């Protein structure tokens, strides 16, 4: 059933193109995007693990007939094991992460359909393009292929920002594109340096050549390529100094849009991060640099979140800060820590989507996002407030929710790897996260209602409540039964290193 693997990328692209052509035909667009979105999570579930070679270009060693006809110059050396075309590998991580990504994508599309009277095909085009491009990044084994789909993901992210009705959206999008146009070509140059040394862009081949000493892995070209690719990575995920623009981007989009943007960022983080770990993890200073940038991201984002007064901006900073945990797990670099980091990534995908959509309900009700002017909304939306509270507990790591499980694993791995300081900092930061969350929860829901606060609509849309409920159920299930996910991830990480 390996034919299903490319379909995970192709179906969203085809859906996106059809929806774009349909344009403003409201009911058809709604039905089609709903059907495709609900079908997408099923594909990773029913697909089997395996590889897909595009155009049938499997490695020569798999193809006995062709190999015997070639001269011994090729068939007897390691060249015959190299990958000729682009190949997709579908394993445990891909299965789980894509399932949750498509769930979040479905819920984002579902809320977008319900909260707007007229939905344009172009907006759905952007969402599906974003989903398919990050899927391709995660599946691909080819670092240049990742770069191309990363650029497509950036353009669709910009489109998702522009579809909101915030009055600063064009400025933010422009800043994001200018910084992105510096980061993108620099990433490409880094890939070029790697290509100059290795002659291939396939990650498996690169690691093979490094492990067997076929290239000098301490040559300046290799180190330079690490610097440039690492810079591209921190740009793509929003570690400092890109945390300000990333949080601004989250705060300018619609609630469902920001949930999707964060999901895309997490997948980009994981796929580029794994590529960097696989290629460069033998260099001694790589782990230190990853830990340094992740720590800086966590500390700066959480302190900025504490003193910010704009509700959406606070959640944006919290979301960016949480990405630091994944980076720490990658930086510690043991099997347990990478597993924990991947688990944390999945949890973050779900929890931040919950918070963005849950707090987005407040902004839909009042059209105000300044927390000093809000208050007392618990009497308007009691159900939503309880669910958001539980989501915040999950983010801060309160048992028995899923954030607790992954953060516990991260702390254990830090202690095992002889980094007790990191464990202390992680606990400290999650306490501060909890405090920030309680602060905004109090400001929005519990504080006495200001007199000039006008609640425009009396009810939040039922779709938002449904979405938050589904995400909360996933949180609780993953918190009670983490083995559902962790077992697969452990196998995946074991095969990785």
């Amino acid at each position, binding site marked *: 059933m390996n034919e299903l693997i490319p379909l995970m990328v192709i179906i969203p692209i085809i859906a996106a193109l059809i929806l774009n052509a349909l344009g403003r035909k409201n009911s058809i667009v709604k039905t089609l995007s709903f059907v495709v979105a609900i079908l997408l999570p099923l594909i990773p579930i029913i697909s089997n693990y395996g590889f897909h070679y595009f155009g049938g270009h499997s490695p020569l060693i798999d193809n006995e007939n062709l190999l015997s006809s070639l001269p011994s110059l090729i068939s007897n050396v390691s060249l015959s094991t190299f990958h000729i075309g682009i190949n997709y590998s579908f394993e445990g991580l891909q299965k789980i992460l894509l399932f949750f990504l498509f769930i979040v994508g479905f819920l984002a599309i579902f809320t977008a359909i319900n909260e707007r009277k007229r939905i344009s095909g172009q907006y759905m085009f952007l969402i599906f393009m974003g989903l398919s491009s990050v899927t391709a990044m995660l599946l691909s084994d080819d670092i240049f292929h990742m770069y191309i789909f990363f650029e497509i993901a950036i353009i669709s992210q910009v489109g998702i920002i522009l579809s909101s009705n915030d009055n600063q959206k064009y400025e933010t999008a422009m800043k994001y594109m200018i910084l992105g146009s510096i980061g993108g070509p620099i990433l490409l140059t880094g890939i070029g340096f790697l290509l100059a040394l290795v*002659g291939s862009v396939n990650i498996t081949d690169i690691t093979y050549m490094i492990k067997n000493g076929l290239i000098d892995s301490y040559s300046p070209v290799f180190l330079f390529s690490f610097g440039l690719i690492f810079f591209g990575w921190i740009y793509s995920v929003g570690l400092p100094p890109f945390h300000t623009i990333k949080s601004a981007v989250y705060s300018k989009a619609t609630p469902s849009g920001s949930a999707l943007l964060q999901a895309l960022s997490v997948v980009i983080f994981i796929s580029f991060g794994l590529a960097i770990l696989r290629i460069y993890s033998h260099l001694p200073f790589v782990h230190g640099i990853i830990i340094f940038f992740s720590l800086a991201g966590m500390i700066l984002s959480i302190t900025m979140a504490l003193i910010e007064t704009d509700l959406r901006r606070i959640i944006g900073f919290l979301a960016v800060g949480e990405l630091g945990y994944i980076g720490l797990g990658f930086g510690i670099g043991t099997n347990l820590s990478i597993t924990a980091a991947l688990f944390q990534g999945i949890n973050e995908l779900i929890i931040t989507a919950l918070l963005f959509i849950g707090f987005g309900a407040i902004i839909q009700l009042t059209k105000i996002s300044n927390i000093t002017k809000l208050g007392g909304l618990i009497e308007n939306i009691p159900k939503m407030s309880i669910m958001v509270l539980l989501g915040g507990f999950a983010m801060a790591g309160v048992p028995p929710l899923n954030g607790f499980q992954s953060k516990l694993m991260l702390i254990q791995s830090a202690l095992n790897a002889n980094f007790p300081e990191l464990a202390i900092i992680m606990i400290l930061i999650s306490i501060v996260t909890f405090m920030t969350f309680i602060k905004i929860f109090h400001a929005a829901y519990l504080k006495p209602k200001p007199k000039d606060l006008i609640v425009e609509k009396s009810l939040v849309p039922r779709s938002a409540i449904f979405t938050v409920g589904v995400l909360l159920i996933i949180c609780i299930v993953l918190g009670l039964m983490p083995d559902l996910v962790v077992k697969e991830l452990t196998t995946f990480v074991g095969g990785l290193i």
Partner: protein
Amino acid sequence: MINTQIAALLCSGSFILIGLYAAIFLDNIIKKIIGLSFIEEGANLFLITLAYRSDGVVPIFLPGMSPDWFVANSAYPLPHALVLTSIVIGASTLAVMLAIAMVLYKKHGSLSAFKILGDNHE
């Protein structure tokens, strides 16, 4: 003694540096965008330069060539395929940026990055 490959590498490096200079120091948004397109072109030129082989041939296998001679003399075709994609991506990014710049001009009546993209909380 300077050969074509090194000269082309220097050329791509200077394109990237000129583009970075424009993106950082020039205030006009259109000029910033022009600078960013130079960075993109420099990166593409860098990739193509990697594939070059002095006294080589174009990597197109014509009938009548012996495969061994072709392998020994042709340029490396993989970066060519990569750059083709990258050029198109660069042009589309540029188009999106110009579109946003046009909207920003309509809104602010100016193209100065300092005025438009500074810290202007309303």
